[in-house]
């Protein structure tokens, strides 16, 4: 079977927006991949952290549909080890924000059971509520 290579139209604006939101020079990434095997969540991600950066570099907005950006725990291991000094955690946060700002869905805090509310980790609530303010 002949493989068909699909040429996608890439969106440079997406790269610039993500750079602006994260404050990071995303084009500085040399794709060495040290982040991927430093990340404690890599095995559960659909694409690797290095791939996330690569997709942003080429302006592929499809990266917003990945689960990987939501699995990033912002532990900063990648940031500490990046030989180019790029803060990947800031970039994944910028990507998450781009989806959040679309307000596709949100949690109605009133609909959560009071008991459940008490049991929920505070960080989960804060993350959920952030959607209202972003």
């Amino acid at each position, binding site marked *: 079977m002949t493989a068909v290579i699909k040429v996608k139209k890439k969106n440079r604006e997406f790269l610039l927006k993500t750079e602006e939101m994260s404050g990071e020079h995303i084009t500085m990434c040399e*794709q*060495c991949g040290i982040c*991927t095997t430093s990340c404690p969540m890599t095995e559960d991600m659909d694409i690797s952290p290095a791939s996330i950066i690569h997709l942003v570099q080429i302006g592929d907005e499809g990266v917003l549909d990945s689960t990987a950006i939501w699995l990033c725990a912002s532990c900063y291991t990648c940031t500490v080890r990046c030989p180019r000094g790029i803060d990947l955690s800031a970039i994944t946060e910028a990507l998450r924000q781009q989806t959040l700002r679309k307000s596709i869905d949100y949690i109605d805090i009133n609909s959560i059971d009071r008991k459940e509310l008490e049991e929920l980790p505070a960080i989960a609530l804060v993350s959920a509520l952030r959607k209202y303010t972003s």
Partner: protein
Amino acid sequence: MSQNIGVYVCHCGGNISDTVNVDEVAKYAENQDDVVVVRSISHMCSEEGQKAIIDDINEKGLDKIIVAACSPQFHGPRFRKVVEKAGLNPAMVEMANIREQSAWPHFNNKKAATEKAKLLTKAAVNNMRDMEPVVPEKMKIGKNVLVVGAGIAGIQASLDLADSGFNVYLVEKKPMIGGHMAQLSRTFPTNDCASCILSPKMADAAEHPNIHLYTYSEIESVEGTIGNFRVKIKRKPTYVDPKKCTACNSCTEVCPTLVPDENNEGLALRKAIYLPSHIAIPHSYVLDEDSCLGLQPIACGKCVEACEANAIDYEQKPKHISVKADTIIVATGFDIFDAKRKPQYGYGRYENVINALELERMIVEAAEGSPLRPFGKKVAFVQCVGSRDVTVGNPYCSRICCMYATKLSMLLKGMIPDADVSVFYTDLRSFGKGYEEYYKRAQEIGVRYIRGRPGEMYENPKNKKINLKVEDTLTRDILDDDYDLVVLSVGLEPSKGTKEIAQMLKIPQSSDRFLQEAHPKFKPVDTAIDGVFIAGTAQGPKDIPDTVAQAGAAAARAIRLMNKGEFEMDPVKAFVHEELCTGCGDCVDACPVSAISMAGSIATINPPVCKGCGSCISSCPTEAIDLKLFTNKGVRDKISGILEGKKSGENRVIVFADDMCTYRLADGVGTAKMEYTSDAYIVRVPSSSRVTPRILLEAFEKGADAIFIGECEKAVSPYPDTHGPIEMSIFAVKKVLEKAGIEPDRIIFSPFVTVMFKGFVGKVNKLAEMARKHGNIPEEKRRNLVKMLEEVDR
């Protein structure tokens, strides 16, 4: 003083005269004081033009010449020769650059170009009026060279110098010469054995009648300057007389002390009395006083008893040797990156994680039948450990690791045919001659190159294998495997000795901490210090061929200075008006190369050390320090020439341009016919650090609407740090402007390299536009600026 100045306006065959009305400029020049001859000639650089100058000097008694033509960078040397031919001092000619600075950038505005050409000519006449003859000093220089470091760079430079008849003092810190190369197995891309090709050179250096070799020695101090460096060398005692020692090894056999062997990178042990390496030159035993039990027969003394040749002497003391050198070559080399600084790779904790230099030693010793440790079958190389990594402060590429990993992989495959060798790389750089083919050869014999940088590694506590996880960044697969041996391809850092000698000789270091060459392209082995040259990895990471080439270049550069027996110093040097000097000593601290000292209560300049940057001038409160060819008076006269007669509403921006970068950049902009504001007038200075706050404020007093200060970017500057003094001057000026109610943004500073055309045009235009918006500074606001400076100072 009566003067006879001649002004020659060049048409440059239309290049100038198509835009600038040259007749108008000539007429304007005639009306200047002291100008007795004015000519307007088609090509000043032609025979005809040159002859006109010579004839006028002879017949009309001209003593000073202005050539209003192209850039002095272009034809300056030619006209200096012309006036010299006619018997004048070469300083007696000045060029008004009306081509690159007027006709070309303002080709669209003939009127403005002509007006600017007039003022540039007037500024040159003004400057020339008080110009004094300058005679470059000549200094005697001998034929003695100090070479610091006897690795391959130091050895090669010493041999080249010694063979050319120069006297070499070769100083090495270790007990043997040869440096890191003496530790290596083989060399890429030919795979010849390192010690086999190095040993003959080591022997040549040790035996050469013109080379005085000091091993186990350190430089204690260096004083003086080119032609007269006074060097103190401390030779540590080896406690063994090399003349008596027969290298029988009896002492080593009986010695009870064991310490890690430096030559084997600590993978083996040595005794306190030992032969540094079996290829050591000098081939003599050394007693290491730090690990010896006590240098007293009571404490141990076994080696003395065992030595039949009576070569061991516990009473030896350090020797202090003084030598005089005319030039110095620094070849102090590198240290490998300490992989413990990347803790995620476990070096130092896991026994099967080693660095590449250790593998070199393992291969050498295994080939000689005394393996240091097992190799294993499954081996991984991790590239860029301590290179290209901002987390350890080494953003640079170490240049040799790709090729040495390739070499070591091949050697491993040669020794263990079924070895499985993988090289984990980020970018593979096989840049040298024959290197790409070498890389291909490794791939042919089955070395696998996988693109990815491992995140971390763990030791399996049971079998001590190393688990390594890495993303193959080409397939995006995560590889997870166990290895018998992981080799970290560690990068290069400047050695401890390199940093020490840099401080001692005041050689600037670049941001990567390696020694800074005087110019990255054209003076790659010179330093900012006259008579001091650099070679090898002290200057930056490099392989053996480049090191040897650079060593030869350093030797040639040193020979170039010494061969004639005397050398002519650059005439642009600081000098002191003794009657003005108050002896405060501020200039002594301001000088970046320590060329100034206090003789009693008066500052004195040491001309061979002075670089002519002028940083001292800004620091002097009484203007007692001055610069030859670019005197305080001369700079003021030029500024007056530009500002005198300025009418209200006219906008003038003074651009101070350093000779090396900004002036050449402006020439480039002109040559490219890129337009910029004709409000900008360029004043050439060797470095903008010679422009004092007082001169800047006087310029504002005289009516300058804005001041632009251009200076070389630090990396390409021919001077040690000049940005500090410039920034301090600007700080003082801004403070005064603020106090006087004048917009402080009328003065800006920008570093340049010679290619930043758009940046220059943009910044100058912006400043001029801003000054126009602000309007002229009202007379009453700018009247007392210099006086206010004194108040601010206080």
